[in-house]
C-alpha cells in the first residue's frame, strides 16, 4: 500500500509538472509576441516594452517558467493583467458559487443514476429496463446548454418556480435565495452527468450479475435479485468510485458552460470572460488550478479505491 501510494503520488507530481509546462508553453511560446498581443494593434513600442518588462518577458523562457512555478509553490498563481487582482483571491471568491454548484450537481447525479442504473440492469430485457436504458442513452447525447435552456423554459418560464438566471448579490448571507439560484444549474449538470453515470452503473451491475460470488449466493438460496443487491452492490459501488474522477472533470466542464448560461458569478464564467479578454496570466493560473484539481481528484479516487477494494489490497 505504501509503495503504491508513493508510486501514484509520483505520477501525480509528474502530471502536475507536465500540465504546468503544457499550459505555460501554450500560453507563452506559441503566440509569438505576447506583449504585442496584450497591448493590441494600436500600441506604441514603448507600451509593448513596458508590458514585456512588467511580465518579465525579457528573461529566458526556462527562467520565466521557474519564476511562475516558484510563485505557485508559495501559493501565488499570478495576477490579472487588467485588474491586478491576484488569481488566488479571485478563485477563492468565485468558488463560493462553483463549489456548492459542483457538490450539488454530483449529489443529484448520484441520487438519480445509482438506483435507476441498478433498476435498469435488473429489469434488463423488459419494457421498463429498456426504457430507462434508452432514456439514459438519449440524455447522455443532450448538450448541457440545451438541457439548461429546456429546464429554464419549464421551471422558470412556464411554472415560475425558480429564477431563470443570476445569483443573489448578497451571496450566501441569504442561503435560501442562493440555494434556489443554484438549483436549476445543478439539476442541469446533474441530469446530464447522471445519465452517463447511469449507463456506467447499469453496466457495472450487469457485470456483477455474472460474478461467481453472486451466482454462489443465488445457488445458496437467495433470489437472484437479493443476491445481487446484497453481494453485488458493494462491487458496483467500488466501480462507481473509479469513474468519480471522470465525473468531477465532467462537472467542471459543465460548470463552465452552465455558469455562462445562468450568469452565475463562478469560476467557469470567470474563465470564459478571461479567455475572451485574453488576460493570459490569469488564464494561466486558472487553468493550472482547474487541471491540478482534476489530477488531485484522480489521485485521491485511486487511493480510496485501493483502500476499499479488498481484491486490490490482497494483490498488493
Amino acid at each position, binding site marked *: 500500500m505504501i509503495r503504491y501510494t508513493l508510486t501514484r503520488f509520483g*505520477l501525480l507530481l*509528474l*502530471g502536475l509538472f*507536465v*500540465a504546468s509546462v503544457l*499550459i505555460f508553453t*501554450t*500560453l507563452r511560446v*506559441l503566440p509569438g509576441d505576447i506583449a504585442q498581443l496584450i497591448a493590441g494593434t494600436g500600441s506604441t513600442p514603448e507600451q509593448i516594452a513596458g508590458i514585456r518588462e512588467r511580465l518579465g518577458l525579457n528573461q529566458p523562457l526556462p527562467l520565466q517558467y521557474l519564476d511562475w512555478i516558484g510563485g505557485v509553490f508559495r501559493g501565488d498563481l499570478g495576477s490579472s493583467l487588467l485588474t491586478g487582482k491576484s488569481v488566488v483571491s479571485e478563485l477563492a471568491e468565485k468558488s463560493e458559487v462553483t463549489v456548492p454548484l459542483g457538490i450539488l450537481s454530483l449529489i443529484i447525479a448520484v441520487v438519480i443514476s445509482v438506483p435507476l442504473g441498478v433498476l435498469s440492469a435488473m429489469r434488463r430485457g423488459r419494457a421498463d429496463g429498456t426504457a430507462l436504458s434508452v432514456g439514459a*442513452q*438519449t440524455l*447522455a*447525447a*443532450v*448538450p*448541457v*446548454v*440545451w438541457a439548461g*435552456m*429546456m429546464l*429554464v*423554459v419549464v421551471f422558470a*418560464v*412556464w411554472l415560475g418556480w425558480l429564477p*431563470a438566471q443570476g445569483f443573489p448579490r448578497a451571496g450566501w448571507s441569504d442561503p435560501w435565495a442562493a440555494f434556489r439560484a443554484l438549483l436549476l444549474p445543478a439539476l442541469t449538470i446533474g441530469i*446530464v*452527468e447522471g445519465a*452517463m453515470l447511469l*449507463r*456506467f452503473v447499469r*453496466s457495472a451491475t*450487469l*457485470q456483477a*450479475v*455474472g460474478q461467481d460470488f453472486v451466482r454462489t449466493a443465488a445457488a445458496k438460496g437467495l433470489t437472484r435479485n437479493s443476491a445481487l443487491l446484497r453481494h453485488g452492490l458493494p462491487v458496483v459501488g467500488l466501480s462507481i468510485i473509479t*469513474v468519480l474522477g471522470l465525473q468531477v*472533470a*465532467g*462537472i*467542471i*466542464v*459543465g460548470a*463552465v*458552460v452552465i455558469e*455562462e*448560461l445562468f450568469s452565475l458569478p463562478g469560476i467557469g464564467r470567470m*474563465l*470564459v470572460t*478571461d*479567455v*475572451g479578454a*485574453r488576460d*493570459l496570466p490569469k*488564464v494561466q493560473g486558472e*487553468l493550472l488550478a*482547474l*487541471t491540478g484539481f*482534476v*489530477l488531485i481528484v*484522480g489521485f485521491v479516487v485511486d487511493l480510496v479505491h485501493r483502500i476499499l477494494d479488498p481484491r486490490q489490497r490482497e494483490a498488493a
Partner: protein
Amino acid sequence: MTTMDAATPAPPEPRRPRSRWAWLGRLWRLSTGRFGLIVVAVVALTALVAGFWTPFDPQKVQISNRWAAPGWPNLLGTDGSGRDILSLLMAGARTTVFVAVGAGVIATVIGILLAALGALTARWVRESVAVLVDILIAFPVLLIAMMISAVWGGSLWVVIWAVGIGFGVNIARVTRPELRRVLQSDFVLAGRASGLTPSQNLVRHLLPNVAPVFIVQLSWAMAVAVLAEAGLSYLGFGAPVTEPSWGLLLAELQQFITVHPLSVLWPGLAITLTVLGLNLLGDGLREATDPTLSRSPFATRRARLHIPEVVS
C-alpha cells in the same frame, strides 16, 4: 469477369472480400447500428445538400417576418431577425460535419502516432509515452479548447484541434494495449521473419487488426466533436457569427427564451440526434466488429464501457 469465371471453373476463392465487409451486415442488423447509420447518413446528406440548396438563404434578414410560427413556407419558423430556422439548421449541418470530420482526422493521426510510439518503440520510450498519455487524458477537451482560444482567439479550427488532441490521446490509450496484443501474434512474427520492416508490418498487419477498436473510438470522437462545437460556439469560442452553427443558433435564440421558448427546441434536437446517432453507431460498430461481445449472455462483461465526455 464473367467470361473469366466461365473459362476457369470456380475456385472457392472469392470468399474473402465478402467476409471483409461482413461486419457491415451485422451492423445493419443491430438496432443501434442501423439507427446510427441512418442518422449519420441523413446529417451528412443534409450537409451535402445545404452546400448548394437550402429552402431560404440562411442569413437573409427579413424583419417583417420575424418569429413566424412553424408552418408554410417556414417549416420550423423564423428567428428574431426573420431568418428561416430550417435553412439555418441545414447550413449548420455543414459546420457540424466539417468539425466532426476534421476532429476525426486529427484524432486518427495523433492516436495512431501515440499508439505506435507507445507500443512499438524501445521499452523506455514506450513506457514514457504510456505515462504521458495517462497524464494527458486527464485534460478535459473544453479546457484544451479554451487554452487554445486564449492564444489564437476562437474559431472552428480551435474546436477541431482541441477535440482531435483530446480524443487522439483517448484513442491511443485504447489502441495501445490492442496493438501490443496483436504484436505477440504469429502472423506478425511471420511477417517480421519474412523481412518486413517495422513500418511495413505496422501498415500491413498491425493497423488492419486494430482497426475495429479504432473506428469505434473514432465514432465516439466525432460525437464529442459535435457537442464541443455546439458548446464552444455557444460560449463564443467556436464558429464566427457569420457562420451558421447549431451552437451559435442556440446562443442567439437563448436571448429570447422567455418570449419564444420553443424556438430553441430545433437546434437542440438537431445536436442531440446527431450525437446520439454517432454514439449508437460507435456502440453498434463495437458489437458488430467484436464477435466475442454479442454471443455471451453477460455481454457487458467484456465490453470496454464507453462513457461519453461532457463537453458542452
